[in-house]
């Protein structure tokens, strides 16, 4: 399928393989082709929408493809995200609750006019929120067992890393996060109905307060 010509090469004179050599080559060739086909089939099935086939062979499929051959090519698909989601946080100290701080705003400021945005600004908080969102229901209840807990601790530590150890009233004892979602106004020419979330209006979704202890800061420096 790729072009292969190009090199001037004297064809080596054909080799007469001995019987053991033929045996080794045959066995290896069959194993290789089988492995190649199996891997490609696995990658294909993992990309395809789930169905009876994927369900029946789920364990084998996961064993073959995950974690190192994971495929996810829903890039801006089936529909691109039509909201700007900002993650905001506030801390509680002995002196009361602090003000909301927009953690995403810092990311956006770093990305603006930056030809090479890094993972720390573009992916870290954004994908941590995606992870949290995909492991919790709309009431912020966990839906993915231990993964939900990982997502919560990750998000908490990101917030603490950016907010620091002390608030206006002393050491931080708890932290609360919320998402602020703004729908992107559809293009004026599209004739699309404004969604129920009026564009320009901010929809907040508050998470429960999470207690903070010293161990939460481990390594955050």
């Amino acid at each position, binding site marked *: *399928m*790729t*072009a*292969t*010509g*190009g*090199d001037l090469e004297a064809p*080596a004179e*054909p*080799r*007469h393989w001995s019987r053991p050599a*033929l045996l080794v*080559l045959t066995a290896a*060739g*069959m194993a*290789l*082709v089988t*492995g*190649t*086909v199996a891997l*490609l089939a696995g990658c*294909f099935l993992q*990309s395809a929408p789930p169905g009876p086939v994927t369900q029946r062979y789920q364990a084998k499929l*996961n064993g073959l493809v995950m*974690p190192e051959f*994971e495929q996810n*090519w829903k*890039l*801006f*698909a*089936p*529909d*691109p*995200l039509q909201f*700007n989601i*900002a993650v905001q946080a506030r801390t509680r100290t002995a002196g009361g609750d602090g003000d909301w701080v927009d953690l995403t705003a810092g990311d956006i400021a770093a*990305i603006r*006019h*930056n*030809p090479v*945005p*890094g*993972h*720390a600004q*573009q992916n870290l908080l954004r*994908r*941590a929120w995606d*992870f949290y969102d995909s492991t919790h229901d709309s009431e912020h209840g966990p839906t993915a067992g231990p993964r939900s807990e*990982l997502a919560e*601790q*990750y998000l908490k*530590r990101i917030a603490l*890393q950016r907010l620091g150890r002390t608030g206006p009233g002393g050491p931080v004892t708890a932290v609360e996060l919320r998402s602020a979602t703004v729908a*992107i*106004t*559809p*293009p004026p020419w*599209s004739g*699309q109905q404004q969604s129920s979330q009026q564009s320009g209006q901010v929809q907040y979704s508050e998470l429960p307060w999470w207690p903070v202890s010293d161990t939460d800061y481990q390594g*955050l420096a």
Partner: protein
Amino acid sequence: MSGTAPQPQTGSRAGEGLLTGIPSQPGPLRAEPEAPAAAGPAPAAPRPSAGDLLARGLELFTGRPLARHQAAALRICFALVVLLQLLREWPERRVVYGDRSAWSLDLARRLTAQDHAFSVLLWQDGRWWFEACYAVAVLAAVLMLLGWRTRFSSVLFLLAVVSVQNRSILVGDGGDNIVHLMVIYLAFTRCAEVWSLDARRRARGGSAGALPGVLLWLLSAAALTAAQLTGRLSWRSGDWPHLGWAALLWTMWAAAGLWYATGRWWPRGEPRAVLDALGSMVHHCAMVVIAAQVLLVYTTAGLYKVQGSRWQDGTALYYPLHLAYFTPWPALSGLLASSMLLVFALSYGTVLTQLAFPVVLWSRRAKNVLLVLMVAEHAGIAVLLGLPVFSLAMVAADSVFLPTAFLLWLGARSRPGRRAVT
């Protein structure tokens, strides 16, 4: 092409000028597809039988590695992508992948206990183990770029890149995903046949300079043994097909040792020829996987998009151009998003190119036109959406489909006044 399992060639006149029909210069490689023998009287000129075609396929499968320039281009491009990425993240490396990450080692270990992802960064706490591993990853990318001791470097590159990514799997994006896959596949290709220090050394001939290779081989054995004795590598993995990293790495290590030994003491013997044939077979399978992987990326990306109503009504591109995370140049994005026809054309153009790619591949000329379009689109994404590394990785992946003539021209241009070492 992967359906040609080698079989004993006893029945197909193996060895009697099988390659004579294959021109040794650029030109149509394929024999004309045959109509079934029963259709009409036998023609005067002898035509290759199914057995001959099979034998020829086997010769190609086990013969000298094909697509050497594409493999080398992939090696160079992905080494460059990884190098740029690691250097880009350098100032923030400790926060993103290291000891200051909000994704603490504890969290990372709890996740990998579930999904069994491989990362040497999780083997040891503390800053300096991380710094050492990160430095080794940078070094591996440089070695891979230069094609120095590539049998060793490509495996080091694989382990380093996979380790860094799996340490903080949640900071990655599509670019990291394609890099992750390609560094694995590349370790199975013979990607340093051209445009590499290895090729230059081979061209100079002789067994001079064998010592570094032997030392690296011994060093690998020591490292693998240490990792295994401390329980960090194992032969078996928990999930089906129960193949641990140790099995893979020791197999590669043994193959490299056998390769060297037979080349040194028995260069004309059959074992060496068998190893060469095996190496070619693995290379060819890996190249097929790489090509299929790229097709899978574009096909699934395209097919998922056609299901979306925003892609259907041709307004999809408008939205990423208003996402704060993907608009480093808001004025430029706003300008582009303000044009109905431009948004429509680019939205549809994106879907159509992605869907057309696998179809168009069978026509050389159309494929090349589409490759140019793809590169242009990725250049646009790099600037507009602020995804330069992602775009570069996708362009690097596309290079598996570049025509050899173009690669040769590029190679000749990039080193004026020097003899090609191909």
